[in-house]
């Protein structure tokens, strides 16, 4: 019940390491089932390569449930492939046709250097969070959770911003390699909640400064990030971040 009848040509980016020069390499695959996930199709390719004595394609992946944010393929010119609101691991081969040629590249951005083949280094995102993407509360001092009622609409809006999985598709698809959708999602989540207020303006300044230091580009309101985000993170977050950033210059007594 497993083998299918799809025949495919893959053009896959191969690059030995960050210093080596990379190139697209052609592979033929036969008998692919439409019920396979895109990454299971890559498992089939890798099994073939290993059996031939070649080195398998290295790609990031872990949960394969669309939530860890680790998978990161640029498929036919789109991060996470042709379907909206879906990560690469949740993309299935029924979204392709028999005979298709599929081009698979790594995320491309100066701030995301290629590590090997389709794997890139996204540690810049962690450093942006470390710069201020938190509420400064140590373990053990919290008041009873229900002492702080939060209107449902507000809690839901914070939750929607918090749904970001940190995959980096927004950066990969942006012509400026901007990380504003990612950064603004975290800033918005905390700015929408009462717990986030004390550090609100300090946070936006530190995180934006770190974002710039990492070499991410600027935002020119194209909206590709929102269109390609597998979790539907809204551009409104960028507007909120910009508003807070501008306000911070006037309101905040602290400058970072």
């Amino acid at each position: 019940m497993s083998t299918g009848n799809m025949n495919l040509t893959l053009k896959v980016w191969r690059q030995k390491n960050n210093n080596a020069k990379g190139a697209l390499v052609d592979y033929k695959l036969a008998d692919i089932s439409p019920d396979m996930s895109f990454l299971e199709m890559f498992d089939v390719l890798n099994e073939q390569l290993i059996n031939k004595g070649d080195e398998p394609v290295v790609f990031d992946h872990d949960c394969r449930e669309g939530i860890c944010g680790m998978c990161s393929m640029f498929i036919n010119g789109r991060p996470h492939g042709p379907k909206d609101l879906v990560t690469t691991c949740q993309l299935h081969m029924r979204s392709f046709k028999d005979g298709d040629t599929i081009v698979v590249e790594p995320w491309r951005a100066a701030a995301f250097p290629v590590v090997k083949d389709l794997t890139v280094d996204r540690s810049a995102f962690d450093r942006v969070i470390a710069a201020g993407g938190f509420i400064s509360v140590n373990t053990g001092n919290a008041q009873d959770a229900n002492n702080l009622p939060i209107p449902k609409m507000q809690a839901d809006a914070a939750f929607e911003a918090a749904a970001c999985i940190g995959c980096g598709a927004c950066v990969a698809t942006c012509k400026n390699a901007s990380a504003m959708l990612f950064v603004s999602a975290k800033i918005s989540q905390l700015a929408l909640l009462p717990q986030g207020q004390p550090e609100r303006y300090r946070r936006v300044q530190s995180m934006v400064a770190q974002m710039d230091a990492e070499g991410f580009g600027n935002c020119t309101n194209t909206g590709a990030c929102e269109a390609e985000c597998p979790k539907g993170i809204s551009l409104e977050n960028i507007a909120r971040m910009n508003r807070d950033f501008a306000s911070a210059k006037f309101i905040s007594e602290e400058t970072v």
Partner: protein
Amino acid sequence: MSDINSNIPEGELTSKWTKYKSSVPLVNPSNKRTIEVIIVGSGLAGASAAATLAEMGYKVKCFCFQDSPRRAHSIAAQGGINAAKNYQNDGDSTYRLFYDTIKGGDYRAREANVHRLAEVSANIIDQCVAQGVPLAREYGGLLDNRSFGGTQVQRTFYAAGQTGQQLLLGAYSALERQIGMGKVEMYTRHEMLEVVKIDGKARGIIARNLITGEIERHFGHAVVLGTGGYGNVFYLSTNAMGSNVTAAWKAHKQGAYFANPCYTQIHPTCIPVSGDHQSKLTLMSESLRNDGRIWVPKKKDDNRKASDIPEDERDYYLERRYPAFGNLVPRDVASRAAKERCDAGYGVGASKLAVYLDFKANTERYGKIEASKAGNHNPDKETCMRLGTAVIKEKYGNLFDMYAQITGENPYETPMRIYPAVHYTMGGLWVDYNLMTSVPGLYCTGEANFSDHGANRLGASALMQGLADGYFVLPYTIGSYLSKEISVKAIPTDHPAFAEAEERAVGILNTLINIKGTKSVDHFHKRLGHIMWEKCGMARNEKGLNEAIQEIRALRAEFWSDVRVPGTADELNTELEKAGRVADFIELGELMCIDALNRNESCGGHFREEYQTEEGEALRDDENYAYVAAWEFKEGVNFELHKEELKFENIKVAQRSYK
């Protein structure tokens, strides 16, 4: 009967933890600054411990194999987290959460640990909300709750179907805060390959930088493993692809006992296998059983579409067999009942290894409520379904989308097809009340330890345990050990013990690379998984387990002579990483079968076909098996059994009944 000491404090159950906290020796702030703690794993149990210990002033190093600590598999937990808050005024209490957990675990967990877990559960919710974790709320602004299996109260807090993600991102942000302040050194894309022991105490680890292949030595006054469960021993499970047992297994080989390895949880509601290409299985949260009714056709081999089978020809077998808990029986009970129906020929779908999870009745019920809110007290069916679908979508939208994406079917229109799959492992490294393993200075937290869930974990208890261990238990208990270590200076990593441990790790890597056999790592992993699922899965028997042990030994020999690992050890080599992990899974698989064979009873997730009641329920043997089986590793892949007797002084041990 016990030959190991669990170090449970004396005194009344309800005051043990309070007294312990007040009397545990402390480490003063200036000493904390010179004490180093290594934490392996950055999931709920690892990240929360790393952040908290750094806040307290210790020097912390944290390691994960993923590219960021935010990717740990805790992130995939969907349904919720339990806490005895009694916000719903439905009679919940610390005692009830304690009782439900002990009973749910089929009386195979340690009373003192479970009571402590129930005590700190409420603090977890407070802490997470303070961090800005957006848990679900009601219109009044207060936190919302839902029901989970094995309980009759609503104590589960949640964030849509992404509770694990939101809690992990909370712990991750606390961790990143400490990283930014320079109090935690984070090592991503690093895998622990050895524990370093000096004079019998854990004093560090050997780790491999997965990008460069470099082998690194790291010293710590203590080492904490929060490295998750070992469900991937079955190849197919709901775990992430990288989830592995290697850190725990290396610790086991250095003297840490491995407890109750055969207790594995098969989750009843997962998307069925679609073919041989399958690389992992996807869970559909247990919370769906709040609103989904499970059924199969009453007629064998019924090939009609679900919608063509009339109501009176459907067998809602859980509601029939367990009227008191219905669709919300614990996971082990629900899984076995599904297997029983499918084995008897009532399964549905192409493979016949699936049952229906049907939301129609509750969609209609919700629709009626919504219509009545809008003043329409006699709505037609279509209106009900339309309004009810919106309610279902808000509750479970992301799960329904995931189901549709994976199966290509629309679950709003046809019932989901589900089947049990390996999900969680209750067994793990043996720890005492302090969460310390049998190696002094080596701690184990979260799913990686064995301590709180007995033979079966209740839904929404894994997130609770991981965060309880990391935020509220370990930071206290580790102090009792470290307070005696304050005079120990950081040991230089050129100490012979580091060199020996490194030699062991490098030896294994080189051996794997140099076998140059004919079969891929996945080939062996799939074969191991097949043996485990068939013979040490949902139902086990003596004959099958004996066969499995022989087959696994043969597979181990074949692996070490015929595995093919391309590339070299001094580069990013994902096949080499997998090979090391599968080598450890093979040894663990054998121990799981040995443990299952030793345990001549059925309890929780461990079901021995020889030991069942007339109605097919698990039949425990409290006289002979009310103990934790803690296995010691012996040279040449042999294991010696140690027993920790379980004493139930506060709960009357009874046959579990959900009827």
